[in-house]
C-alpha cells in the first residue's frame, strides 16, 4: 500500500475526532473525540516510521517510539479528563457540555 492511503485514513480519523468533539452533546463524546485525534496522529507516526524502514534502526523506529509515548500520554490524559468530567458532573449534575456556562462574557 502507498503511504498516502494511510495518511488519508489518518486524516479522516482526525476529522471524525474533531467532529465528535464539536458536535456531540455529551462530555464523554468529547473524551472519545480526543482519543480519535490521538489515534490519527499515531497512525501518521507509524506510517512515516515504516516509510523510513530502510534508514537504520534508530531512524526507522523514531515514529514508533513517538506513537508509543503518545499512547501513554493518551492514558494519562484520559485519566485526568475522566476525573474532571466526573467532578463537573458532580457539581453541575449534568453531562452536557453546554451546561457549565457560569463563565462567559
Amino acid at each position, binding site marked *: 500500500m502507498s503511504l498516502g492511503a494511510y495518511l488519508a485514513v489518518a486524516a479522516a480519523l482526525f476529522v471524525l475526532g474533531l467532529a465528535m468533539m*464539536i458536535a456531540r452533546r455529551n462530555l464523554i463524546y468529547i473524551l472519545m473525540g480526543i482519543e480519535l485525534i490521538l489515534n490519527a496522529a499515531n497512525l501518521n507516526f507509524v506510517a512515516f516510521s515504516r516509510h523510513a524502514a530502510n534508514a537504520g534502526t534508530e531512524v526507522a523506529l523514531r515514529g514508533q517510539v513517538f506513537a508509543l509515548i503518545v499512547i501513554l500520554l493518551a492514558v494519562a490524559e484520559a485519566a485526568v479528563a475522566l476525573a474532571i468530567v466526573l467532578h463537573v458532573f458532580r457539581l453541575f449534575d449534568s453531562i452536557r457540555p453546554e451546561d*457549565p456556562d457560569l*463563565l462567559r*462574557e
Partner: protein
Amino acid sequence: MPPGFGHADLLRLAAIPLLPLVAFFVQTLLGRFGPRKGDWIPVLALGIAAVLGVVEFGKVIIQKPWDPAFRAEWPGLFDWIPGAAGAKASFGILYDNLSATMTAAVGLVAFLIHLFSVGYMHGDRRYASFFAHLSLFSFGMLGLVLSDNFVSFFVCWEVMGLCSYLLIGHFSEKPSAAAACKKAFLTTRIGDVCLFLGIAILWTRLGTFRFTELWEAVPRVLAENGGAYPGWLVAAGLLIFGGAVGKSAQFPLHVWLPDAMEGPTPVSAMIHAATMVAAGVFLTARAFLFLSPEARLVVALVGSFTAIFAATIGICQTDIKRVLAYSTVSQLGYMIAGIGVGGIAAGLFHMITHATFKACLFLGSGSVIHAVHTQEMPQMGGLRRRMPITYGTMLVSTLAIAGVPLFAGFYSKDAILGSVLAHAMERRSLVDALPAIFLFVAAGMTAFYMFRLLILTFHGAPRDRHAFEHAHESPPVMTIPLFILAFFALSGGWLFGRSWFLQLGKGLPGMVEPTGHAAEVEHEAHGLALGGSLLAAGLGILLAFAFYQWKKLSAAAWAQRWGAVHRCVKNKYYVDEFYLATVVPLVLGLTAVQRWFDVRIVDGLVDGAGALGRLGAAISGWFDRWVVDGAVNLVGWLTQLWGGVARLFQTGRIQTYVAFGVAGAVAAAALVLMA
C-alpha cells in the same frame, strides 16, 4: 536735528509723558496712604509737564520762528521689541510743530482738569485711584503726540482706551456706567484693530514703523506706481482712518461718546477736550499722506455727515452733558471733514480751540451739576445769579463754539468751512459739495443748541426752587481752571492761532499749497465762508434766543430791531409755528430715526456683538458637544459595540470555543496556502 535742540530738550520732552506715568505708578501703589490721598502727586506731575510743554513750545516759536519744516527727532530711545534694523519697534520722540502745539495744549488742559478734579471729586470713594487713572490718561495722550513711530503711538492709543474704560466706569456700581465703560472700550477697540491692521500693512510693505521713514517712503511708492496709490496703501490708509473713526467717535462708531457721560465730569472734559477724541484727529493728520484721494473724500464725508448728524441730535437733548457730548461729536466731524478735504491745519486748529472751549464747557457744566446735583436742564434755570463765574466762563465758551467773531471757535471753524467750500467749488460735484452743505447747516444748529443750553441753564426763572436755593458758586480750585480755559476760548483765535496754524500746516506731510486757479478759488471760498458762517451762527443764536429767552413776545422785539433779516422778522410767528408744527416734528422725527438707527443698528452691532457672539457661540458649543465630543464618544461606543461582538463569541460553551478554534486554524492554513 534743527540747531538749538539738544540733549536738554530731549530730557525735558521725555519728562512730559513720563512724569504722569511715574505719577500713575506712585499714585497706584502709594497714593492712598499719602496725605490728601496723594492727589497732589498727579497734579504736580501734570503741572510740571504742562510747564515743560509750554516752555518747549515757546522755544520752538522763539528759536525757529514760523519755520514750517521744523522737526526734531530722537528715534530709538528705548528698544521695545528688538529685531533687524528696520523691523524693530522702539520708542522715540518726534517733535515738530504739530506735536509741539499738541503737547503744550494737552498738557495745559490736562493739568487744568486735574486741578478741577481736586475740587470736583472731593470725598469720592475711589478718589486716589481716580487720580492715578487720570494721570495715566494724560500720559497716554502726551506720549501719543510725541511718538515718532506707529508702535509707541499705538501703545499710547490703547493706554488711553484702557483709561477711558477705567474712568468712564468710575461709578461702577451704577449699571449704566458699567455698561458704558465696556461700550467705550469695545467700540474704540473695533477701530483699534483696524488701525493695527493698517500699521501691519505699512510695516509689512515698507519695513518700518517710524513716521518720518514712512513719509519718505510713500512718495517713492507713488513714483513706482505711476503716481497712483496702490491698493494696499489705500487699504492701509482707510484702516488707519478706521482707528480714528473709533477714537474720534465718528459715524458709525460714535455711539460710545454720549454714553461716556456716565463718567465723572472731569473725565468727560478730558475725553472730549484734551485726549481720546483728539487723538483720532491727530492720527488722521499724521497719516494724511497715506490717504489716497478717494480715501480723503471718504474721510471728508464721514466727518461732515457726523457733524450734522450729531448736531441734529444735540438739539433735542435735555441732559446738559449729553448736549455737550453730541456737540463734541459734531465738532469732531468738523475737524475730520476739514482734514479730509485737505485743510489739515484748519482741522487741527479747530481741535485746539475746541479743546479749550469744550473743556471749559464741560468743567462749567460740571460746576453746575456739582451745585444742583442734576444734569437735566429743565430743572435748572436762572443759575446766572447764583453762579456768576461759571456763567461767565461758559458764556465765553458758548460764544466761541457758536462761531462768534473774535472768539476762538470762530477762526477755526471758519477755516474749516473755507476749506470745504473751496473743495466743493473746485471739484464741482454733488459728492464733493456735500461736506460743505452739511457743515454750514451744522454750524447754524451748533449755535442754536449751544445757546439753548445756556439759556435753559442760566437764564429765566428758576424752575426748581429747591435746587436753586442750594446752588452756590464752586470753590476756587474749580473756578480757576474755568477762568484760564475761558481766557483761551476768548483769545485762542487771534492770540497765536490762525497764522501759526497756517504755518504749521505747510510743514505737514501731504500738504499741498494751492497755486494758480486753485489758490484763487480758495481765496474766494474763504471769503464766502466767512459770510456764510457768520450768517449761520447768527441765525442759530437768534433762533435760540427767540425760542427760549424772549419767548414769543421777545421774539417780536427782536424782529423789529434786526430789520436786515426781514424775512425772519416777517415770519416771526410763522417760524415759531413752523418750528413747532413742522421743524420740531421733523427734527424730532429725524432724530428719532437717527436714534433708532443708533440704538438698533449701531449700538446693536456693538453691544450686540455680544448677542452675535452668543449665537455663534451657541452654535459652536453645539458643534463642540455633538461633533467633537461625539467623535470621542463614538469611539467609546464602538469599543462597547466591539465588546458586544466579543460577547457573541464568548458564549461560555466549550464546544463553540473548540469550533471557533478549528475554524481559526482552517482560516490560518488557508491564508498561508493562498499567500
